[in-house]
């Protein structure tokens, strides 16, 4: 269960999961209400994460720290031309 990894302050119970699920349904409806005319646009729905609040989802799954990388320089573009 993903919720096993949650901090103590977010202890799970069926009521909390049901409330998170209802919020997910509402959020998915909102997300799908835009751009549905575009055939290729992303669509959103129920999956294994629907029982989690967004802050819980973020706390468990979105744990990558970002760094600022240098801009890709032109000289690297040139050197790639020599790569077979």
């Amino acid at each position, binding site marked *: *269960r993903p919720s096993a990894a949650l901090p103590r302050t977010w202890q799970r119970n069926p009521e909390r999961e049901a409330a998170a699920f209802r919020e997910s349904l509402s959020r998915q409806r909102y997300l799908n209400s835009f*751009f549905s005319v575009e055939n290729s646009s992303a669509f959103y729905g129920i999956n294994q994460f629907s029982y989690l609040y967004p802050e819980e989802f973020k706390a468990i*799954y979105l*744990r990558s720290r970002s760094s600022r990388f240098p801009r890709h320089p032109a000289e690297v573009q040139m050197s*790639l031309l020599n790569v077979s």
Partner: protein
Amino acid sequence: LPLKFDWRDKHVVTPVRNQQACGGCWAFSVVGAVESAWAIKGQPLEDLSVQQMIDCSFNNDGCSGGSTLNALLWMNQTRVKLVYDSDYPFKARSGLCRYFSTSRPGFSIRNFAAFDYSDKEDEMAKMLVTFGPLVAIVDAVSWQDYMGGIIQHHCSRGEANHAVVITGFDKTGSIPYWIVRNSWGRSWGVDGYAHVKMGSNICGIADTVSTIFV
């Protein structure tokens, strides 16, 4: 550049894995790219040990989080060899680092390049085709509900929080997109993959991109 390219078609991408409740996406993405880089170089395609990276990359925090840059620096500086996944299987929690004899088969990296390709996604595509799948960090908050289609809205940049592997791109349709391998199991998204619009740095996909050399 071809209009469509996917390293999966060359059989050099391992199946999608599931990080479960471990915040180790940073390790899954780097290990996934190393697996592919070695397969492109002619080695048999094998699952390598994500758990080894989670336990042993001392400059990261295991299942509590980490950075792809730190993971690559660790690999580059220590010349550590990643062992097979079967030798050091995934446990979905951080543990003590296990050490292996240097004679044990394993796969290290020669170097890596890390750049910001925002406004230069065509250059990013060149790197992908030339060297292999790319490690990227994205803002994946809206990916909680993603089921399929091309992500082109509801995704900010500048809040990168999730590491993935870009295995290809498709420019044959009206909306060109990156093919992005995730680590949330095959039941998520499009068989475990997401499609993210190319050319607009959607989700910050071009901001922090690493290429691995083996």
